[in-house]
């Protein structure tokens, strides 16, 4: 499957680096920050991320993630953070509104996923968050990024296209999109 993926031949434009502060479409002050250092249970940011996923609307799940139930969520996040990728969080005060992650696939290639809590969707946070994640990865030398998305998930596909992702493979139930950062 992955060997059939076609990356764009052109390198994407330079994305804004985190941190970014802005007001979302509802007038809420949002801060997007890279999440560096250790992420582990007990850590304030980790617990805030767990809280966001525990409240996450199951209807917004994609291909089985995030899992349902706090234990499974903790297990999934532990596995995610063990892999040493890049993570960016959108904060309103001390509440996590969204999380975007690049998980290493091999040395130069990363899988992307982004989750915005239902109370914060449709307010322009996803765009700022994904741009900041791509900027963060770009800054650290990440070269190729891919993702999968269910075909019917139009808002997600539109977001990925807006920031420069191109369709890489479309013969499966879910489609693959890819971008070249460096």
């Amino acid at each position, binding site marked *: *499957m992955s060997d059939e993926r076609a990356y764009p031949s052109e390198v994407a434009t330079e994305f804004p680096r985190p941190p970014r502060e802005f007001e979302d479409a509802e007038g809420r002050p949002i801060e997007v920050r890279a999440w560096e250092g250790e992420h582990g249970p007990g850590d304030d940011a980790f617990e805030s991320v767990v809280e966001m996923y525990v409240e996450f609307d199951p209807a917004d799940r*994609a*291909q*089985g*993630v995030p*899992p349902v139930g706090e234990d499974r969520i903790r297990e*999934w996040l532990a*596995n*995610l953070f063990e*892999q040493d990728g890049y993570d960016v969080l959108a904060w309103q005060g001390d509440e996590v509104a969204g999380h975007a*992650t690049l*998980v*290493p*696939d091999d040395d130069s290639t990363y*899988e992307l*996923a982004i989750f915005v809590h239902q109370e914060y969707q449709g307010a322009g946070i996803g765009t700022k968050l994904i741009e900041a994640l791509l900027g963060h990865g770009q800054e650290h030398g990440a070269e190729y990024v891919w993702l*999968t998305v269910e075909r019917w998930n139009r808002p997600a596909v539109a977001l990925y296209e807006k920031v420069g992702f191109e369709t890489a493979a479309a*013969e*499966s*139930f*879910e489609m693959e999109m890819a971008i070249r950062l460096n």
Partner: protein
Amino acid sequence: MKVLLGIGGADDSLDALHETVERAVETGDEVTVAVVENPDSDRAPEDLVDVARETLTDAGLEADVRRLSGDPGSSIVELAESEEFDQIVLGGGQRSPMGKIRLGNIAEFVLLNARVSVKLVR
């Protein structure tokens, strides 16, 4: 129930083999294993035939293992129809680095084309 398990060597297909055998021991299902060539798997079909025979025999079941040639998805569907199986069982997909489930190409083909029920094992 007459069950046709298709395996191509990806990890999820081996999980499906173990689950199906365990269940057959409990329920008395009649299991046939169809070994197909999965281009996404490194395991050789000949080795899979041995693994399947051994797993069935160890569980005290009859070792009905077939090696199918040609397109993997359509050969499974064809066999299921020509020998009137009640159900096709397949691996339920592999996880991406970040944990998303991705169905294999064979499972996608079988789901869309089979006329009997298809079970995906998670």
